[in-house]
């Protein structure tokens, strides 16, 4: 018996799989960056199916809406953007192949040897309130440390850009 969540699971699977193939095999770096949007969007769909509504919206807002824009901007600043047809060579040498293959192997071994806590999907309802309560009561210090982390990232970016402009 296939319910509606299962149908959506397979739709998102196809979306993620198809667009990640595009990310990897497209010779145009800009197209790869755009295709990554659909991968991140599909992952947001998975979060919805797993009951993480807040996480899903954050995934779309921060990753699909923010980080992906940053990546697209980043590709426009690379030197090879003037040849868009060949800016993203799919095969990048033997060492990369070994590294990627090794990572795949490690992930497969972990997948096989871990007993995942599997339980049927419980409807938790909206989770934003619980997250807010946890942030303000149990995890105050991490919450404030996040802002320091963000400031450190921002200052680092400014220092690097100013240094790059001077040279």
């Amino acid at each position, binding site marked *: 018996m296939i319910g509606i969540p299962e149908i959506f699971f397979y739709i998102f699977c196809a979306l993620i799989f198809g667009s990640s193939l595009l990310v990897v095999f497209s010779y145009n770096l800009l197209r790869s960056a755009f295709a990554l949007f659909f991968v991140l969007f599909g992952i947001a769909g998975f979060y919805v199916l797993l009951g993480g509504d807040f996480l899903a919206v954050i995934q779309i*807002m921060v990753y699909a809406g*923010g980080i992906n*824009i*940053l990546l697209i901007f980043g590709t426009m600043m690379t030197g090879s953007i003037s040849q868009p047809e060949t800016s993203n060579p799919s095969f990048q040498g033997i060492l990369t192949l070994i590294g990627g293959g090794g990572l795949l192997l490690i992930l497969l071994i972990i997948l096989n040897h871990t007993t995942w806590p599997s339980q049927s999907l419980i*409807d938790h309802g909206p989770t*934003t309130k619980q997250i*807010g309560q946890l*942030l*303000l009561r149990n995890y105050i210090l991490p919450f404030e440390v996040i*802002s320091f982390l963000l400031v450190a990232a921002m200052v680092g970016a400014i220092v690097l850009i100013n240094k790059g402009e001077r040279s």
Partner: protein
Amino acid sequence: MLENFAYVFTFLIVGIGFVALNLFVSSLIRPNNPNEQKETVYDCGELPVGPGFTQFNMRFYLVAFVFVIFDVEIAFMYPVTVIFKDMVNSGWGILAFVEIALFIIILLVGFIYAWSQGGLEWAKSIKSQFEKTQDT
């Protein structure tokens, strides 16, 4: 909860369908006789100069980066705003306010630093080049 996301899905389908339908209908009824001049890149009526695929200024990256930083800040502030009323009613309002104020002030320091370093000024390099030519 999945039922709530049915609304989101409906919006998504209607949004994509609206664009697709409009493009399809307009492709049916519009005249199609392109010529060389029509196919040039429209650049505010000016003739385009040079290739379109050029390396962009690093300054764009900083603005995009500051956007992502504040995007993440909003993401963390949103759950706090949802429970703020409950916190006020249960007597924890001041604590919640101080926490979120501290969070914003720390990020504001970073923003002021970006501003003071001229990270948000567009014409900075052009201005310094202009001053250089004035000196010589």
